[in-house]
């Protein structure tokens, strides 16, 4: 699992920026400097990735380490594509179904845990939540064994199943905390209007769930796409490797030229990066989805 799966969402900052912008101070330029410096440091790896990936073989030595390419070329990219595209396809075949199933499950579970509670609902929630924090190494051996014994088809299906199961805690968390913000009297009104559980979910809760679905889907997609641990333990046949494992494999050897390494890294990260750039707002909202505030 990548960092996204490991770090639970954080609470939401409520002040609007504009409110604060009015309060200027002498400190502001210093602040900006600091923020900008850190931003540069944060973006530095991106610069390296981009710049190196477009260089020709001759330019990737120490002397030209940081300079822009004198001639931009797509060679590395083409190579990276050749090597990784089948694995990218695997990743899509993994991430999309797993994400879809995962968020639907999360929505139903979150609904029950927050709005259609039963005695011991909080205990069950804690019980589920713990599953998010365990080191997955602790279950890898028996998991493989279990899959073998149960004759689960090898390859991507095993990964999909694993991600759906281990995604239960985090999706339940996201939806539960989101649904907690829906006023209870809305559901009481539905009760008075003679709605049962499924009707309440379908007509009242589901239409209001869009933000949580987006957040959960982005979170899960990113986690699943970026996962390495599950993939490397559960998928033995290189043909079925998702792109993270393939990436690590092709670039692990020291003879792989840097431009290919960088291009491959970028290529493999493209989908999640795109999701972040286009839907980053929701990504952040997911990060701050009022979860474990501590």
């Amino acid at each position, binding site marked *: 699992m990548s960092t996204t799966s490991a770090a639970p969402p954080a609470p939401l900052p409520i002040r609007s920026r504009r409110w604060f912008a009015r309060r200027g101070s002498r400190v502001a330029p210093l602040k900006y400097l600091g923020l900008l410096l850190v931003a540069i440091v944060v973006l530095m790896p991106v610069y390296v990735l981009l710049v190196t990936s477009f260089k020709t073989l001759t330019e990737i030595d120490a002397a030209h380490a940081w300079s822009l390419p004198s001639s931009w070329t797509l060679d590395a990219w083409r190579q990276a594509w050749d090597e990784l595209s089948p694995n990218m396809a695997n990743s899509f075949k993994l991430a999309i179904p797993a994400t879809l199933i995962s968020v639907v499950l999360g929505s139903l579970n979150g609904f029950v845990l927050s709005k259609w509670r039963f005695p011991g609902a909080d205990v069950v929630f804690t019980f589920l939540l713990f599953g998010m924090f365990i080191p997955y190494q602790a279950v890898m051996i028996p998991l493989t064994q279990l899959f073998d014994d149960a004759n689960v088809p090898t390859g991507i299906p095993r990964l999909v199943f694993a991600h759906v199961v281990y995604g239960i805690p985090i999706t339940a968390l996201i939806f539960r905390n989101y649904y907690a913000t829906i006023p209870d009297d809305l559901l*009481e009104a*539905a009760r*008075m209007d003679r709605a049962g559980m499924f009707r309440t979910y379908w007509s009242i809760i589901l239409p209001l769930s869009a933000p949580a679905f987006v957040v959960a889907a982005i979170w899960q997609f990113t986690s699943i796409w970026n996962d390495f641990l599950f993939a490397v333990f559960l998928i033995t046949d290189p043909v079925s490797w998702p792109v993270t494992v393939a990436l690590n494999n092709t670039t692990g050897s020291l003879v792989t030229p840097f431009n290919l390494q960088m291009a491959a890294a970028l290529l493999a990260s493209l989908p999640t990066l795109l999701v972040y750039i286009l839907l980053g707002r929701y990504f952040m909202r997911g990060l701050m989805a009022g979860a474990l505030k501590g």
Partner: protein
Amino acid sequence: MAEIVVNELSKRYANGFEAVKGLSLEIAEGELLVLVGPSGCGKTTALRMIAGLEDITSGDLYIGGRRMNDVPEKDRDIAMVFQNYALYPHMTVAQNIGFSLKLSKRPRREVRERVRETARLLAIDSLLDRRPKQLSGGQRQRVAMGRAVVREPQVFLMDEPLSNLDAKLRVQMRGEIESLQKRLGVTTVYVTHDQVEAMTMGDRVAVLRDGLLQQVDTPTNVYDRPANLFVAGFIGSPPMNLAQAQVEQDGDGLAVALGPTKVRVPRELAAARGLATWAGKSVIVGIRPEDLHERRNGRSEGALRAEIERVEALGATLLGYFSVDVEPPPTGSAVAVVTGETLADAPLVGSTGGTMFCATFEPRTALRPGASVETTFDVERLHFFDPDTEAAVWAE
């Protein structure tokens, strides 16, 4: 429409807290009964038990003669108007109102017709395609009512439906809700903490305190004959003036010694109130501000002379506050009794001592703090209360 009978209804929570203690009421068909009391008195809990949103710990609930304790809320044929309206945010006004009908699988044409009719009745037919967030508070309130009305239930339950509205709008809506209820003739239970709402709207008013029913009667009776100190202090604004007094033997009759003044009690009055048994005892006396007038004639019986400490000019009325040299009741003034605020009788800035009284004056009187006034009251207008039980004293 149906009558509601509540018998020894109680609600106890898991932590032992008793929100409602043995409530017994009979609400006639078509009646509008107001449950009123300070926050935490159990009125909303009682309402929710009738609705089926809360389980009944003990006691019985009958609606239309049928025992409803174990009947799920959706089968009770009750409609509820929530304090915060609880409108479905993603549905239009029409969909909000028609939701329950749709769930009852009524034909679409019927649903549309009934929704339109209800909307017309509540003057919101131009808003049918809007979403709740596009509506003002008053409009949302009407949609919430519409949702209840369209169902033509046997009972309406209303949980402080006006408390989120602007004050002026509240006054107007009060009358409209009452007219609507009279027109539809549906048995209604209305919960509020505002005693003015209770007095103006209810056919009868039920006053609750800490889960216990204090009194249930018509507004006028509750006002004129409060059953105990709490009701006396709660109903009526400004609140009733309360003080300790002595009932004394005065010749062959009785008199009430209220601080510096003493009034004789006419024989019929003494008989009607059963004051004979109180001769020589301490009693709590109450007099409403509007029953204390500035002395006109020269009669000095029942006169309270004092210096005005504060004046409130409200336009239509003029209130004057002054200290009277009497002891307040042991449980405190009306405000202290009703709110439970122990510091209600400890003025922020020290006064001249005694008990603060309030009287109404002629609206255009030039009254200033520091002015000396003499107020008088009619002994018939006095209320008497037992200092130990706080119950009103009557010959019964």
